[in-house]
C-alpha cells in the first residue's frame, strides 16, 4: 500500500512538472506568417515594402465612387442623378457624420499618413542602402505621399489631426487635438520641398513618384494655400514650382501633347493609346491589366457613375446597359450641369475647342438594330417620316486596333458609324431647331430638351407634361472610358491621372495673377492650354488676351480642361467661389441647401468620433 502511494507521488510530481514545463514553452506565441517591426523595417527589403504600401491607399480614391463625390460634386459642374450621393451633390440633410464615402477618404488618408510616418521614422536606421542619398531618394516618396494625404484632409475637413510620428512608436492617441490649417500647410510644403530635392528624376516604374510629381504637387498646394492669406508669398512659390516644371520638361521627363492637323493635343491626352505611357501624366494611379491592383479588376468605374439611362429610354432607340464600350448603366449617380454643358463649354457645333467632344460621349450608337415604330415616334414626338426606318446595329467583334480584350468581345461603334448611320442617342451641348430634331431618326436630347429655361435646372417632368421626359439622358463623362482598356461593362483598366502637366500651366497662370496680377504671364500659360485644345488649323481661334485673365476666367478654363478629374470642389474653395451666390448663379440645384457656415468642410466621420474620448473637440464639424 505504501509503495503504491510512493509511486503515485512520484507520478504526480512528474506529471505536474512536465505540464508546467510544457506550458511555459507552449504559451509563447509562434507566428511564422509575420516578422517583427524592427526586423522588417530596418532592412531594405522590408523598408521598400513599406514605401510601396504608401501607394495602396491612393487606389481607393481616384476613379472610385468614394472620392468622386467629395472632389467633384457640390460644385457648378454636376447634379445628382435621381438623388444619388445627394449629401455631397446637393448638401442635403443626409450629409452627416455617418456618410459612408467620407469614412473611406478620411480613413484612407490617415492610413497613408501613418505608413509614411513609419517610413520616415525608420529612414535613419534602415540598412542596405549604399548612401544616405539613396535612403533620401526612397523616403522622399513617403514625404510626398504624406503631403498628398494631408492636403486632401485639410481641404476636405479643415484643421483636424496632424501627426508626424508613427502609431507604432507614439502609441494610440485617443484624445487627438486639432491643428490649424496653416500648420497643415507648413508640414505639407516642407514635405514636398524634401520630395523635390531628393526624388529621382526618373523612376523605373511609371507609377512611382518622380520629381516632376513633387514640383507639380508643390505648385498645386502652394496655390491652394493662398486661400489662408500670404497670397503673394504662396502664389510666388506656386509659380516658381510650376515654372520649374514647365520650363524644363525634358529634364523632368514630361511633355504636353500638341495638336496636329487632325487631332487636338487634348484629344491625345485622353486617347486610350496614350493612356499607359502618357507624357503629360506627372503622377498617375497605374492600373495593372492582369488585376494586380488593390480591389483587383474593380477599377475605373467612374464611367459607370456618369452614365445616362441607356437601359431605360435608350432601349427604345437601340442602346442597352450591358455593352462593354459605354459601360453598365446600373449605378448612375451624376449628370453634367447645364452650366457645364452650355456655359463652360461653348454650345456650338462648330467650336474650335475639342474639349467638350473629348470629355463627353454625346453620340451613343445602337447595340442592336432597331426599327422605329409609330408608337416610339409618337412617344418621342418625332415626325411620322421616321417611322419604319431602321437604326442598324453598331455592335460587332472589334475591328481593332485600340483594344486589349480577348478575341470575341463585341463593341458598340464598330460598324455603321460612317455618317452616324447607327446613331441611337444624340446629346449635343448645342441646340438644334425643333423641326430638324423631329426628322432625325434617333433620339435627340439637346439642352433645350433637358433644361428648364426658367431655372436652368434639369426639367421636372411633371412641370412639362407635354414634353418627352429626357431626365435620364445626357452626355456621359468619358475621360476614363476609352475603348482601349475597357475590360467588362463595369471596369476600365486604364491609368488614372492624379496630376498632369496641363493643370500645371493653369496653376502657373492663376499663381501669376495672384502674385502680382501678371495677366500677360497668365495669358501665356492659358493660351498654351487653349491652343492645344484645337486642331492646328483652328488654334488661332482659341487665343485669349491678357486683359481677359481673371481668376474667374481661369476657373472656367480649369473646368473645360479638368472636368471630372477630382479637383473642382478644391478649385471653388480656393478661388472663393464655394458660395451660395456662385452656386445659385451657375448650378442652382446645388445652391438650395448650401450653407457657407458648414459646407466648406465635411462632417467628421462618426466612426472616428466614436473611437476617441474627446469627440466634442471635433464635433461634427458644424453638421
Amino acid at each position, binding site marked *: 500500500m505504501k509503495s503504491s502511494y510512493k509511486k503515485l507521488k512520484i507520478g504526480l510530481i512528474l506529471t505536474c512538472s512536465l505540464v508546467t514545463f510544457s506550458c511555459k514553452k507552449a504559451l509563447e506565441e509562434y507566428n511564422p506568417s509575420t516578422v517583427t517591426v524592427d526586423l522588417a523595417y530596418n532592412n531594405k527589403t522590408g523598408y521598400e515594402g513599406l514605401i510601396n504600401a504608401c501607394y495602396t491607399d491612393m487606389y481607393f480614391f481616384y476613379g472610385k465612387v468614394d472620392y468622386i463625390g467629395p472632389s467633384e460634386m457640390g460644385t457648378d459642374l454636376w447634379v445628382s442623378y435621381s438623388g444619388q450621393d445627394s449629401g455631397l451633390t446637393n448638401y442635403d440633410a443626409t450629409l452627416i457624420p455617418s456618410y459612408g464615402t467620407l469614412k473611406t477618404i478620411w480613413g484612407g488618408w490617415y492610413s497613408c499618413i501613418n505608413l509614411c510616418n513609419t517610413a520616415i521614422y525608420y529612414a535613419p536606421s534602415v540598412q542596405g542602402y549604399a548612401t544616405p542619398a539613396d535612403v533620401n531618394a526612397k523616403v522622399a516618396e513617403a514625404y510626398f505621399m504624406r503631403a498628398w494625404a494631408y492636403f486632401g484632409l485639410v481641404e476636405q475637413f479643415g484643421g483636424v489631426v496632424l501627426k508626424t510620428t508613427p502609431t507604432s512608436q507614439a502609441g*494610440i492617441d485617443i484624445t487627438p487635438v486639432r491643428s490649424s490649417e496653416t500648420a497643415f500647410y507648413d508640414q505639407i510644403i516642407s514635405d514636398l520641398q524634401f520630395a523635390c530635392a531628393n526624388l529621382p528624376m526618373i523612376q523605373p516604374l511609371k507609377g512611382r513618384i518622380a520629381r516632376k510629381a513633387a514640383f507639380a504637387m508643390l505648385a498645386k498646394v502652394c496655390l491652394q494655400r493662398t486661400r489662408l492669406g500670404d497670397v503673394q508669398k504662396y502664389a510666388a512659390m506656386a509659380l516658381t514650382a510650376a515654372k520649374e516644371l514647365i520650363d524644363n520638361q525634358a529634364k523632368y521627363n514630361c511633355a504636353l501633347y500638341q495638336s496636329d492637323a487632325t487631332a487636338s493635343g487634348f484629344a491625345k491626352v485622353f486617347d486610350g493609346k496614350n493612356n499607359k505611357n502618357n507624357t503629360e501624366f506627372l503622377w498617375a494611379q497605374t492600373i495593372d491589366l492582369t488585376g494586380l491592383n488593390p480591389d483587383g479588376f474593380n477599377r475605373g468605374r467612374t464611367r459607370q457613375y456618369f452614365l445616362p439611362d441607356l437601359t431605360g429610354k435608350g432601349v427604345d432607340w437601340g442602346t442597352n446597359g450591358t455593352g462593354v464600350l459605354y459601360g453598365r448603366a446600373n449605378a448612375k449617380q451624376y449628370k453634367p450641369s447645364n452650366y457645364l454643358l452650355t456655359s463652360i463649354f461653348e454650345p456650338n457645333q462648330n467650336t474650335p475647342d475639342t474639349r467638350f467632344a473629348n470629355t463627353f460621349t454625346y453620340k451613343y450608337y445602337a447595340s442592336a438594330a432597331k426599327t422605329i415604330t409609330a408608337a416610339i415616334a409618337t412617344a418621342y414626338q418625332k415626325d411620322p417620316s421616321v417611322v419604319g426606318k431602321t437604326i442598324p446595329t453598331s455592335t460587332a467583334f472589334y475591328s481593332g486596333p485600340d483594344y486589349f480584350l480577348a478575341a470575341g468581345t463585341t463593341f458598340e461603334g464598330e460598324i455603321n458609324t460612317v455618317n452616324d448611320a447607327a446613331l441611337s442617342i444624340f446629346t449635343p451641348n448645342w441646340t438644334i431647331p425643333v423641326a430638324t430634331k423631329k426628322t432625325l431618326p434617333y433620339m435627340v436630347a439637346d439642352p433645350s430638351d433637358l433644361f428648364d429655361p426658367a431655372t436652368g435646372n434639369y426639367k421636372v417632368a411633371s412641370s412639362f407634361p407635354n414634353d418627352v421626359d429626357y431626365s435620364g439622358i445626357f452626355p456621359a463623362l468619358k475621360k476614363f472610358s476609352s475603348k482601349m482598356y475597357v475590360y467588362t461593362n463595369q471596369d476600365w483598366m486604364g491609368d488614372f491621372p492624379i496630376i498632369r502637366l496641363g493643370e500645371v500651366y493653369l496653376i502657373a497662370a492663376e499663381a501669376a495673377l495672384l502674385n502680382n496680377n501678371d495677366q500677360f504671364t497668365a495669358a501665356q500659360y492659358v493660351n498654351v492650354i487653349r491652343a492645344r485644345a484645337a486642331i492646328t488649323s483652328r488654334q488661332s481661334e482659341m487665343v485669349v488676351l491678357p486683359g481677359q485673365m481673371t481668376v474667374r476666367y481661369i476657373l472656367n478654363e480649369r473646368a473645360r480642361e479638368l472636368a471630372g478629374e477630382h479637383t473642382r470642389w478644391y478649385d471653388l474653395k480656393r478661388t472663393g467661389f464655394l458660395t451660395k451666390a456662385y452656386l445659385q448663379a451657375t448650378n442652382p440645384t446645388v445652391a438650395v441647401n448650401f450653407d457657407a457656415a458648414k459646407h466648406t468642410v465635411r462632417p467628421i466621420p462618426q466612426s472616428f468620433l466614436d473611437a476617441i474620448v474627446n469627440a466634442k473637440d471635433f464635433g461634427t464639424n458644424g453638421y
Partner: protein
Amino acid sequence: MYTFNTEFQCRRNTPRSLKPLIIMKLIIALIIISLFQASAITRAQNVTISANPATLEDIFSNLHKQTGYNFIYNSLMLESAKPVYIEATNKPLKQVLDYCLSNQSFTYVIEDKTVIITQKNNLPVMKLAQVVKGTVVDAKGNSIPGVTVKVKGTNTLTSTDVDGVFTLSLPTGNEILVFTFVGYQSQEVSVAGKTLLKIVLEEGISKLDEIVVVGYGTVKKRDLTGAVSSVKGADIVSNPVSNPLEALQGRVAGLDVQRSSGQAGSSPALLVRGTRSLNATGGSSDPLYVVDGIQQSNVAALNPNDIESIDVLKDASSTAIYGSQGANGVIIVTTKKAKAGKTQIDVDSYYGINGFAKYPKALQGDAWVQYLKDRFFAANLRQPTDFVTDLGITTAAKNAIDAGQYVDWVNETLKMGNQQNHHVAIRGGSEKVQGYLSLGFINEQGIYQGDELKAYNTRAGADVQFNKIIKAGVQSNLNWRNDNTTNSRVNKAFGIAPLGLAYNADGSVNKFPLSDGTVSPIANYAPGVFVNNTKDLYLAITPYVELTPLKNLSIRSNFGVTLDYARNGAFDSENSYNALSVNQPYKEATYGTNFNYNYIWENIINYNFTFKMDHAFAFTGITSLLNFTTENSSIYAQGLDYDAFLYFNQGAATTTRSSTKYTGKDLASFSGRFNYSYKGKYLLTITDRFDGASQLVKKWSQFPSAAVAWRISDENFMASTKNWLSNLKLRGGYGVSGNSNIPPYVSQTNVVSNSISTPVTLGGSATLPIYILSATVANPDLTWEKSYNTNIGLDISLFNERVNIATEAYYTNTQGILYNRVLPSTAGGFDAKTPYVKYQNIGTSVNRGFEATIDVRVIATQKFKWNSIVTYTRTDEKLTSLDLGSSVSAASLISLNLFTGSPIHPTYDWKKIGIWQTDEAVEAAKYNLRPGDVKLQTNPILTNGVSDNGIHPYTANDKTIVGHPNPNWTMGWQNTFVYKNFDLNIFVNARYGQTIVAQLLGYYNGVNQPAFYNYWTPNNPTNDFPQPYQSSTSRTNNNTAFISSLPIVDGSYIKIKNITLGYTLPGKIGSKVGISKLRFYGTAYNTFIYSKSPLLKNVDPETGGSDSFPLYKQIVFGMNLSF
C-alpha cells in the same frame, strides 16, 4: 469511463421511514415493529464508537460491551470483511450496524437481543406467515433477472433469478415489496395476501437518481449544486435531425437555439444565457463543446444516434472547472458506450422531403404590370401611355408580355429537397473488454440545386479493464463530408422581370431569358458553369488510461488529437451568374485548404472518502494543456481554358495568386474541485482554476467558484410533507468565469505581407512587395474578460416525482469585456477601409435571467401515458459601460452599434410608424414628404433651446434603437403521448420580443417585388408598404432612402416545430424473430407557425429574418430497429 463517484458512502438507501413522525406512518410502523423482532433496538439502544479503523470483530465486541447484545457470526466468514472507519456518538445501534455492514457482503437480523450476522441473501429463519412468488418483466414482457426485491421497512431482500422469478417468505403476507433495478423505475407493490405476483417494471429511473455529467465527472441529480440541464439521447433522436444541436431547441431552459438557415448541413446558433461578449468576430459567444471529456468544436460531425446524453452547464459554479473556456456555458455530449453483456445492434434510418410550398412569389402577369403602372404614376402623376417609353421596360419585355411569356422565378429557383440519415451501431463485450462501432450516412439535398451534403460517419471505441488497477481505452470519430453549396438565389427572383423564357427549346437553361442582357437567376443551374465544393475529413482519436490504485482513487490521463482537413474548390465559368452579370470574359477558380490539428492532454485525479459516516468528501484535480493550430492555403486562378479543369489545374491559368498562413494558440490550466456533503442534505462544491492563454499579455488568471445546496426535504421538520413533496432543494452558487476567446497574435504588433489583398505593380509587370503593420495594434494591458455569476436554483419534485420543477435565477456581471475596438482613424489603418483595431478590455455588461423547467407525468397508466415538459427562459442583457480610455463611459457608439443601457447588439435604424395618408398631406409636407411616403419616428432637434418637436426632413439622426434581436423570453413545450404501442410527440416552441430584419420585407420597389406586399396607392390607404416609385429624376422618391426601416418587424412567433407519430411492434412478435425493438415513425416539421407581425405570415421567422436559405416544412419517415 472516468466517472467521478459522488455517490457518497454515507448515503445509503437505508429507509429513513423507520422513524416517521406523522401519525399515519407511525401506526404502520408500530404494526410492523410489533410483528418484527427488530423492535428491540428501536428503543433508543444508542452507542458511541470510534474506529480508525477496526475489524468487524473488534467492533462487534465493542458493541456487545455497550449494549449487552450478543453477536453470532462465523469467524471464518468474517475474514473477508473490510476494515471499518467510524466515528459515531450516541447513535442508534441499528444505524451503526447498517453503516458498518454497508460495504460488506454481510447482513444481519436481530433476534431477542442477539445479532445474527449472515452472508447476504442467506436470509435468516424468521417466523413466517406466507411465501410469495413472483415474476418481474419489462414493458415488453421480457423477464428481468437480478431485480432487487425488498420488503419495505426491513432489511429483508432477495433478487430475481435468470427467469425473473423471486420467492420471499413474509411474516404477514400484507407487506409492501419494493422492486428496484438499474435503468428502471422502482416500484412498490402491496402483497395484500396474494401468493403469486407479476410485476412490470417501467424503464427509467427516478429523476433524482439520474446521472448528470458535470465537468470531469458525473453526479447524481440529487447531489447537484449548480445549474445543469440534461437531454437524453432518446429525446435527441425522437425527432430526427441531422445536427444533434438542433435537437436541444426548446428542451433546455436558458439555451437559445436558432436555426438561421435552411442550407444543407448548416448548424444552428446556440447561445447560453444571452450574449456577454462583444467580439465582432464570429463564434466568440459559442459555448464550449466537450465530447466524452474532450473539447471538440465539431459537434456537428456527430451522428445524433450516437449520443447518449447532452448536458448543458449554465452557471459559473458548474462551468468553473472549465475556467476560461466555459464563460459562454458548456455543452457536454456523452456518446453511447458499450456495456458488458448482450451484444446490441441498433439500426436507425429516416428519409424526409423538404419543401416550402408557400414561399412568397414575386408579382406575376397583370399584377406585375399594374405594379409598374403604379410606380409610374407615383413618379409622374399621370397614367402611363406606353409600356416601353413610360414604364421603362425593354421592347423584349414588351414582346414577352404580349406573348404571355411569364416566368415564376421563385418556382424556377426552388426545388424539393430531401434528407436522409442511416445509422448502424453495434455494442457489446465482456466484463473486461467492451467495444462499439457505429456507421452513419447523412444525405441532405437543399432547396436549391447544388445545395447538398453527404456525410459519412464512423465512431468506434474500446475499453479494456486489464486488471484491478489499470483500465485503458480509445475512442475515435471519423467524419467525411462532401458538401456542395450554391449562392442564395431566391432573392434574385425579386430583382428581375417575371418575363421571358427560362429554358431554351432543348431544355437547357436560357442565360438571358429576355434576350435584353438580363441574366437568368438560374444561370448557375446550367451544367458545369458553377461549382462550390467542400470536402472535409475530420478525425478525432482519444486514447486514455485510467488507474485505480485505491478503491476511491482514480487517476486518468486523456490524450485527444483531432485532425480536420478541409478543401474548398470554387469554380465560375464565364457563363456563371456572376460572370454573366458583369460580362466577365474568363473562367476563375479558387482552391483552398484549411488544415486544423489540435491536441489536448489532460490528467485527472479523483479521490473520495467518507469520514465518520455523515461526512463525504470528494476531490478532483486536473491539469490540462490544449494546442490549436491551423494552416491555410489558397490558390486563385483566372483565365482557364477549359471548364473541365474546374479547380484542379490552377497552373494552367493565365493569372494565379497563392497564399498560405499559420495560426496557433495554446491554453494551459490547473484546476481543482472539492465536494463536501453532510448527510446528503448539505452539499458544498468549491472549484478553482488557473488558466494561461497564449494570446493574452497577462496570460494567467484564476477562476474560483463555490456553490451550496440544501436538500430541505431531507430535514426532519419536512417529514410531514413526504407523501407529496419528494424533493425540495435550494441551490446557490457564485463563480467567476473568463473569456480569452480572441484570435492569436492580437497582442503582437507585427509586420505582414499584404501584397495579395492589395497588390500594387506601379506600372511594372509584377506585384511589388508590400510590408505593413498587421491590422491589430498590440495592447500591452490585454487581459481576461471575467464574468461574475450568481445563480440561485430551486428544485421541487411533487407527488412521487410525477411533477418535477427546476427553476434558476441568475445575475451575471461581466467586467473587462474583450472587444476589438476600432482605433481613431487618425492613428492610421490597415488600408483605406480597414482602421486599426486593438483588442481591449472595454466595457461591462449585466445579464439577468430566469429559467424554469417543468416536467409532468400528467397521465401514467399502464396503457396510456402523457408526459409534458415545459421550458421557459427569460433573459435580459444590458451593456452597462463602455470605456474608451477615459473615466467617463461613452453612452453610444453608433458606428459600432453599441449603446450603454441596451442589449449588446441592438437594432438601430429608422423606426417606421406607418405611411403618410392622403389626408395628412399638409403635415407630411412639413417633412418634405407626400402621401404614400413612409412615416418614421423622428427625434426632436433643439436649435437655440427651441425644439422642432421632431418636425423636419428625415435624417440619419432620426435613427433610434428600434429593438434587439434577442427574445425577451423563449418557451419550449414537449408532449409525449404513449398509447399501447403508439407514441405521439408534439413539440411547440415560441420566441417572444425579438426584433428581426426580415429580408423578405426588403425587396420593396425593385424590378419586381413579392406579391403579398400591400403597398400604398391613392386608392389603397394601407400602412404596410409605402408607394413604390419608378426610378425617375422628375420627382424625388422619398422612400428610397428609408427602405431600411421596412423590414424591421417584431419577430415574435410560436410554432409547432414538429409532430412525430410512432408505432412500436409489440415485444412478443419481435422477439420471435430476434428483434428486441422495432419502431416506425413519421415526423412533420414546421407544420404550424404563428407570427405576431402580420407581415411575417409568409416567412419562417426562426431564421431571424434571413431568407437566403429559407427554412422549409419537412416530412420525415423513419425506423428504429434493435436486435
